[in-house]
């Protein structure tokens, strides 16, 4: 066991830090441009230097570096020190790109990957339906192969729901039933669909936070080319699993929990309770340390998983736990925050623009519930841990 980095990695860290000095904040001539252009410029430089999109081949706009979890960690650490932009956020980069790289055709990769990386193409995820949530494989949106003006095409009918940011997206990756006579799972295919077409209606849904981050999406004879299917007909469930895997592992990062805990500490220092800073209150201190026990366990468990992955060892079922651990920490942070917020609970943060006062914590209080539900609810996570992790008898083949 050695928690320090060897000379090669320390050298790498220095190189990254030096690159950042020259590039973020951006040089004066770029700094006049709007923020998103600054970020785009920075990302191009970072890709050229091999710091972003390391697993994506160069021909598709990535930097094609050898997999090295430690280097990836160093990059993340150094970038976050100076708050430099990491890989562009969004479901496209998190889920679609890895899926296409794993299961897509050459043409699909060429068509979609690099423009998704740069943020030119924005994606939505079309899995959930009004009657197919946890039981996703019961989905009913249909796609049929029919003759179209330019050869065969898929014609899609049905409805998706809870699609995050679909109102701003250009494309959607969709699970649809293409083989009505096949079994529940075997009848599903994974399709890519252009959202900007007449057969599609998108209705934003107002959320508990007051914001509108997800939508209903209706397909009414919507079309997509025959070769915009990822994997074979009927393979959609398997293909989607590779995507869910990416989603779960990206949600599982302990750094999110560590950062959240730091912010909570800050809140406790700034809040007055019984005439003194809340952080001086013995009950608050006890609860904070109790929570820190979970946060640090998660952190070091992640270090271990990281080291095992780097050494090509199997870390067993602990990987299945990451999402639920993060969720539980989020709940506990919310539980403590509500007692620190007091009267601030009475006011909502603005829906547009950034909240600056303590009311911004309302976003965490509510957002932690979204984390609990999205990407597989906590009960579904427990099913997975119990059945796949602990080896208890399976109830259904779905999880």
């Amino acid at each position: 066991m050695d928690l320090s980095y060897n000379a090669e990695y320390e050298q790498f860290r220095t190189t990254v830090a030096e690159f950042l000095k020259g590039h973020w904040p951006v040089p004066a001539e770029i700094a006049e441009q709007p923020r998103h252009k600054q970020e785009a410029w920075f990302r191009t430089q970072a890709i050229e230097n091999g710091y972003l999109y390391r697993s994506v081949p160069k021909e598709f706009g990535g930097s094609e570096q050898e997999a090295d979890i430690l280097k990836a960690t160093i990059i993340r650490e150094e970038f976050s020190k100076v708050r430099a932009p990491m890989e562009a956020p969004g479901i496209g980069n998190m889920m679609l790109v890895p899926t296409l790289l794993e299961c897509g055709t050459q043409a699909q990769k060429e068509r979609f990957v690099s423009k998704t990386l740069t943020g030119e193409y924005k994606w939505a995820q079309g899995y959930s339906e009004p009657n197919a949530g946890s039981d996703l494989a019961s989905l009913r949106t249909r796609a049929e192969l029919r003759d179209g003006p330019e050869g065969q095409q898929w014609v899609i009918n049905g409805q998706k729901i809870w699609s995050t940011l679909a109102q701003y997206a250009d494309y959607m990756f969709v699970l649809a039933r293409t083989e009505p006579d096949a079994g529940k799972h075997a009848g599903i295919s994974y399709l890519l669909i252009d959202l900007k077409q007449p057969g599609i209606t998108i209705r934003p849904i107002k959320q508990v936070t007051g914001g509108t981050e997800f939508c209903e999406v209706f397909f009414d004879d919507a079309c997509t080319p025959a070769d915009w299917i990822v994997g074979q007909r009927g393979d959609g469930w398997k293909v989607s699993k590779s995507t869910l895997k990416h989603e779960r592992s990206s949600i599982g990062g302990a750094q999110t929990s560590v950062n959240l805990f730091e912010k909570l500490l800050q809140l406790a220092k700034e809040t007055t309770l019984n005439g003194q800073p809340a952080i001086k209150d013995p009950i608050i201190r006890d609860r904070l340390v109790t929570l820190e026990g979970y946060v640090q366990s998660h952190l070091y468990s992640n270090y271990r998983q990281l080291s095992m992955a780097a050494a090509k060892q199997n870390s067993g079922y602990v990987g299945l736990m990451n999402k639920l651990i993060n969720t539980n920490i989020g709940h506990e942070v919310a539980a403590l925050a509500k007692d620190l917020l007091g009267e601030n609970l009475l006011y909502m943060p603005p829906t547009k623009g950034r909240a600056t006062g303590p009311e911004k914590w309302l976003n965490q209080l509510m957002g932690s519930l979204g984390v609990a539900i999205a990407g597989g609810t906590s009960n579904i996570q427990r099913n997975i841990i119990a059945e796949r992790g602990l080896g208890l008898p399976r109830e259904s083949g779905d999880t």
Partner: protein
Amino acid sequence: MEFLLSDEQIEMQDSVRRFLEKTCPSTTLHEIFDSEDGHSRELWQGIVDLGIPAMIVPEAYGGLGLELLDLAILTETLGYATTPGPFLGHALCTQAILQAGSEEQKQAWLPKLASGEILGSFACAESNDCWLPEQLSLKSEQSLSGTKQHVLYADESDIIVMALAEGGFALLERGASGLSVHKRKLTDRTRHIADIQLDNTPIEHLAGSTDAAAKVFDTALILLAADSFGGARRCIDQAVEYAQTRSQFGVLIGSFQAMKHQLANMALEVEPMRGLYWHSAYAFDHEPLAARRQAALAKAHICDRFLQTARNTIEAHGGIGYTWECDTQILLKRALFNYAYLGTPSVHRKRVADLADW
């Protein structure tokens, strides 16, 4: 950056596990648990033969010169098997002489402790749940009068090192004049403790220092955390195994979703704690600035969770779990010991907050 055990470390754990499976199966464990002194010479000799008491002793004193992490990972294995006997007191006695003794004292005692020729023990607690080095009031003098509580295997040990006020330490030999041992009915019969009374009892001073006192105390916290992690892991395995063999309503109880979720929640609390105790032991040797706080956090969190996990495990077993003959009762009592010995979690959580200067 490698937060992993080496192949040698895993092999050490495996050989201790195999030894315990052979030498201390459930029936033997219960026999020792129900015995008068909670100490099997054969089992202890085996632990000695495996080199465990020699691990943290430097090679110059006949030891293996390994780090606290090495000892901690084997403590996890001992905890998994709820191994009865004087290991904890012996290890703390060794660490105390190593940290606080003079060169002469180290030469006199460490080889004998490392080889198991003598049995050592450790005493710190004074009345009213005072465990922390800064709470101790008994002072280092020519001879001592007073009480030390909850002393591990006080009757069987050849020497007892006592932590005293202001970072002082004193060594007491078996049969010293004025020394009497008072036993009470024990909760955890895998680690026997007793109060000792000193009446003008002659002692040998150890140089000591507040730093040495802190290190010995932290060692104790880390070993308890490691033992608790092993015990908690055992609870999970035991409960899962039972859920896979016991049927009700015509199906395995492990197929009920309520059971699955209970067991998943238990595993979710336990499995990630491995890294927390590893890091606390690693910090002891490599991150002196973080070490104190990490030791306190590991003890507070892991001992707390072990006790709750042991309770949940008994519940998951139904009636059989509520019996004396089931291993789960031993796990529960071991967890109670680890929870209370050296101070309850809330005591250490307070220290964690104080040490961070919150």
